[in-house]
């Protein structure tokens, strides 16, 4: 997994609530059997019309806004468990997603792929949107070690929470499988203690 420590970037603002995984990557694009290439279809039906022409009014088609940080309204990533949503976001070029609230499964999927989901208070989210709409070149600084998000322009900073284990995974580029595999003896012991065969 890719390592993550710090990032300074402009942002792409998407002030919409309840963005579900069917918006992030519609099901009809889930037919691939590898992890690559999903970025082309990120937010497919918002980005392109039915003739596959870019929709001019969608923020990702507006060259004014660019960057490696996606900022979205609350309850981001609700809906299906498709990890393709995290892959699409990463493949498109985002390393961080900021929202005031994330759906559980999406958050886990993002972390498992080295995409950092950062939950910020509603007021701070509004501030990011306001600052960005006023100045699209405004930058944000993300420091994972310090667990801070800073608005470069104003210096306003907040701390964010992250599970310490997940934090070390991101910083070191480890994944959960490496961790669990180091406990196989315990897993085998555990299996011996099961009261009866749970399967067949």
């Amino acid at each position: 997994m890719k390592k993550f420590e710090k990032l300074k970037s402009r942002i792409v603002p998407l002030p919409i609530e309840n963005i579900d995984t069917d918006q992030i990557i519609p099901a009809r694009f889930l037919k691939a059997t590898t992890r690559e290439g999903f970025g082309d279809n990120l937010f497919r039906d918002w980005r392109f019309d039915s003739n596959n022409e870019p929709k001019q009014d969608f923020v990702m088609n507006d060259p004014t806004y660019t960057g490696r940080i996606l900022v979205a309204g609350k309850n981001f990533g609700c809906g299906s468990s498709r990890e393709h949503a995290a892959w699409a976001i990463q493949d498109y070029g985002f390393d961080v997603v900021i929202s005031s609230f994330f759906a559980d499964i999406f958050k886990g999927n993002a972390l498992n792929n080295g995409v950092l989901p950062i939950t910020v208070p509603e007021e701070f989210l509004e501030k990011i949107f306001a600052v960005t709409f006023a100045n699209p070149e405004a930058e944000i600084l993300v420091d994972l070690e310090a667990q801070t998000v800073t608005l470069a322009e104003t210096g306003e900073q907040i701390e964010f929470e992250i599970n310490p284990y997940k934090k070390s995974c991101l910083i070191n580029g480890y994944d959960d499988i490496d961790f669990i595999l180091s406990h196989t003896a315990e897993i085998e012991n555990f299996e011996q203690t099961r009261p009866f065969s749970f399967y067949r």
Partner: protein
Amino acid sequence: MGKTLVEKIWDAHVVKSQEGFPDILYIDTHLIHEVTSPQAFDGLRKRGLPVYRPQQTVATADHNVPTLNQHLPIQEELSRYQVDMLTKNCKEFGIELYGLGHPYQGIVHVIGPELGITQPGKTMVCGDSHTSTHGAFGAIAFGIGTSQVEQVFATQCLLQQKPKTMKIEVNGSLGAGVGAKDIILYIISKISAAGGTGYFVEYAGSAIRSLSMEGRMTICNMSIEMGARGGLIAPDQTTFDYIYGRELAPKGEKWDEALAYWETLYSDEDAQFDEVLVFEAADIQPMITYGTNPGMGIGVTENIPTTASQPESEQPSYKKALGYMGFQDGEKVLGKPVDYVFIGSCTNSRIEDLRQVAAFVQGKQKAENVEVWIVPGSKQVEAQAKQEGIDKIFQEAGFMLREPGCSACLGMNEDKIPAGKYCVSTSNRNFEGRQGPNARTMLVSPLTAAAAAITGKVVDVRELI
């Protein structure tokens, strides 16, 4: 202090709990399907690992399969490739596959219970968010991403933070024409599409207890639509009766042993939940959604809430949703014309759902303006429907009985609702484009869907029964 049911099952599956780390949780049963597994199998190959406990893994092909002419090779190339890949992977890694053509094939959350794989006290996962369905049996069941599918393949375990617990009680009895689907749509409309995030929900109360297993599955299925990790219901005689004698259920002595354990699976009286919500069944009428998330639901006779009545910060999203649906502030959904009716999905495609629809439509004809697709949840449901003559009733009514799969629930195969069309659907998600680009979905119960099929519009089914 006593324990909640979730805590009892969770604690019985913790391989290791370490300060500062998520728990290592043992997974009894892993269900897989063609869409979220190929990258996980690839990961195993890259690491040179086998599937650790292949006999605790079951596969089916459901999301991406056609629902007509399943005996023929899949037409669409990418879909065919994905399904073939599953077959190949299962063979290579020694996993039992109930694939296309197998008499047990079907939607993963329909076949688990139907085959007796789903049992109380188990931990079950699947790369699909509606894995919560299996919680109806008193299991901890939840959806996972593909990286986690790979983890379970490699270790039969997952790293998991213990969830918070919520109890949702529904007391009293339901009115005629109101069912399990209405209960869950009602709950989600009250607590919102994010109201359960971070929680594992236990459903309780007399209205829940009185439901059949099918009804309980419908309820638990949609737990994820309020953001919950999962939902479950303590097992009781209804549960045991349902499991008894099924293909892969414990038999003989093993049954007695299992039953003795299952009977200990309930939340202790003094157990503490992090949150408790209580609803009255009598307040629930047939429900319908008018927006683009499952929390945007109302009683079928009610008016669509106005944008002004929403919190200010949510108004732009709310407006966008109504715009997508082509609905106005404050208007009624009652009487709205319907183009498609879809009865299927892991929420409502079990034999009980089909029986209920058949009983209602017997001797009636579908309205001319609607197309009606009935998609059974599994080969076994399909066979049972034919055995009971339900297929004939549908045929006479002008309904199309298709073959098992996820179908128009997610618009991944060719079963898509055309742009701009209204579909009254028994599935679980009304997201933009869920049933096809620009399709407009209204989620309802099977009975309300049947009523829409017959009348060609949104109606209050209570007036027709």
